[in-house]
């Protein structure tokens, strides 16, 4: 694990241009699994995030994709210091915030905001919209009551809501409108970084398009930086400049959007990409899908060496299950942790056949 961490750091550092807003090095978050009622002792750890390094440049969008349970939300929560990381370093805007205490953290909190997945659960149903959006302004004492009210109405307008609806309750809005309220709340204190945790997963496609367009417009207008977490690769491709693919708490591949979708290197990325249904029947029929067998293993008791090896179509016995792959660089900041990266994309029929034959009886 130590070797991985080192290469990861180096790879993360070499890709950075020096103008990064956020630098995360070897971030680790282990949740203890305890046993016993009175004397609780730790018997194992859920390695939710295990040695993730990346950086986010000013004004860009970093997409984070992976299956549920791969640690993408935990990673984001650690970066926001909503969870205490077990190890690693988080540098935000030139300051190391990993160990800051509550009071020193408070002024930094207004520079990083979050948009949540479920617009129904993330707004307090008993509070009026005006209060919800204004709360951060009041907490950070940014202006008088009149100024705050003006600012809130301005924000509602910015996100495409009627400023007159200041006094309404969340239940009076539809799902898409509620998500706009969530966006307005995140924008209120002029943050530098917004972490969007699956902001459109709960929405219909037409509403999803409205929110995605809004997020893009706001980024242009206010020079925002996003970390955009989603499990939908189409959405991530649409909004991101660079994409990080996570699997079981590891960043298995980081690349620019073009690189990742045109020539993925990690077999897991390939499998994810090929599993996305294409809304084009003619194209879809021709395409062959790399269907991964089985489920994501438990992060309490992960497989040896490369954590992806039990499901990997390119698995080679004696190598992948023995030696942990380090992050290899493929140029231009494109890195992937794999001993046998994909050579071409999309895969040729020949290669598909080879893969099918490579793992007989892979249950």
């Amino acid at each position: 694990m130590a070797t991985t961490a080192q290469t990861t750091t180096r790879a993360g550092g070499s890709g950075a241009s020096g103008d990064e807003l956020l630098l995360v090095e070897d971030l680790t978050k282990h949740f203890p699994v305890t046993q016993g009622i009175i004397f609780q002792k730790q018997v194992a750890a859920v390695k939710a995030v295990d040695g993730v390094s990346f950086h986010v440049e000013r004004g860009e969008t970093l997409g984070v994709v992976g299956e549920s349970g791969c640690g993408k939300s935990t990673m984001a929560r650690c970066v926001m210091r909503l969870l205490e990381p077990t190890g690693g370093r988080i540098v935000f805007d030139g300051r190391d915030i990993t160990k800051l205490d509550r009071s020193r953290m408070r002024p930094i909190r207004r520079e990083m905001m979050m948009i949540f997945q479920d617009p129904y659960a993330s707004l307090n149903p008993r509070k009026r919209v005006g209060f919800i959006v204004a709360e951060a302004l009041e907490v950070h004492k940014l202006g008088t009551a009149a100024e705050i009210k003006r600012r809130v109405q301005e924000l509602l307008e910015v996100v495409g809501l009627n400023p007159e609806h200041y006094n309404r309750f969340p239940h009076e809005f539809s799902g898409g409108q509620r998500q706009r309220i969530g966006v307005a709340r995140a924008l209120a204190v002029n943050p530098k970084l917004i972490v969007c945790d699956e902001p459109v997963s709960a929405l219909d496609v037409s509403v999803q398009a409205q929110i995605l367009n809004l997020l893009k417009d706001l980024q242009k207008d206010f020079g925002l930086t996003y970390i955009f977490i989603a499990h939908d690769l189409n959405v991530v491709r649409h909004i991101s400049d660079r994409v990080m693919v996570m699997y079981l708490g590891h960043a298995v591949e980081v690349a620019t959007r073009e690189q990742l979708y045109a020539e993925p290197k990690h077999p897991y990325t390939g499998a994810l990409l090929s599993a996305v249904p294409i809304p084009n029947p003619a194209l879809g029929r021709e395409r062959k899908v790399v269907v991964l067998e089985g489920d994501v293993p438990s992060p309490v008791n992960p497989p040896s060496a490369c954590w992806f090896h039990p499901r990997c179509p390119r698995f080679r016995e004696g190598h992948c299950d023995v030696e942990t792959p380090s992050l290899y660089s493929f140029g231009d900041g494109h890195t992937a942790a794999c001993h046998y990266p994909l050579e071409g994309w999309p895969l040729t029929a020949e290669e598909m056949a080879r893969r099918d034959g490579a793992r007989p009886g892979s249950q």
Partner: protein
Amino acid sequence: MALLEVNDLRTHFRTDDGIVKAVDGVNFTVEKGQTLGIVGESGCGKSVTCLTIMGLNPKRTSIISGEALFKGEDLLSMSQRRLREIRGDDIAMIFQDPMTSLNPVHKIGKQLVEAVMLHRDVTKAGARARAVDLLRAVGIPRPERRFDDYPHQFSGGMRQRVMIAMALINDPDLLIADEPTTAVDVTTQAQILRLMKQLQREFGSAIVMITHDLGVVAETADDVIVMYASKVVERATVDEIFSRPRMPYTWGLLGSLPRLDADVDRLVQIAGQPPSLLTPPNGCRFHPRCPYVMNICRTEEPRLAPVPGADGHLQRCHLDEETKQREAAKLLAATLADAS
């Protein structure tokens, strides 16, 4: 004779605020071995359509009319007893959420065996063997051991497989799948869709696939109906709907989709919200959100009319054919240029 023929199906709900017309005059047919995709936004009536066919709407508050002929028998007017015989045997349903559709306090094996014993005259051992076979068929490793596990011991994808096993256990002729993959990851979705296709080939079942994901429709369906505000607005074969869509709402759906096979800077967005079904708009129900709205659209509801020159393609729009061809071509040029 079609396997399922739905004629002028209407489901209205009595509520405190008035009558909600959740399904309002829906027609479609499903042939043996075929897959029909039903797409639309939430609240357009796609789930209610299927619940009505299955006789699962609350009796006290719903007003149902029309007919749903399954092998010539009307499901809507038959006795509860006959319906119970058909349900789970000839027609089966997979629900969206595998977490809530399995009973959490019973072992999955017991739930599967119950489904067999209800409809088949078999011994318990026979039913068990059948259940284990099905669990194996849907790709659950070591089915004999997992048989005695409770639902919470399975992952989401595995639970959805158990649901599929339960739906298929009596070789249904018709399988209604209500958003079967919405709650699972793409990789699991690929596994489940492949499985459903395989089983369809094997058993020759017909599938009604309700989804809001146009990608899933493109990969699985033979025919597609697009629903908007409780009505069918377009119906065609899957190739037609993706290559020659003829209704502005379908254009909106296709254009609002971020996709892997095309690069667009800005997604098409359908302005506004779906209308309230308590007071649907006059004329064409899509007119308040339609960018091509004309005067006639505000007053007169368009018929579901055949598209000239395209067999079986129906659409509900007042726009003239020429404009439609031009606009559809424009939309496709934006997405297909990159794909080819």
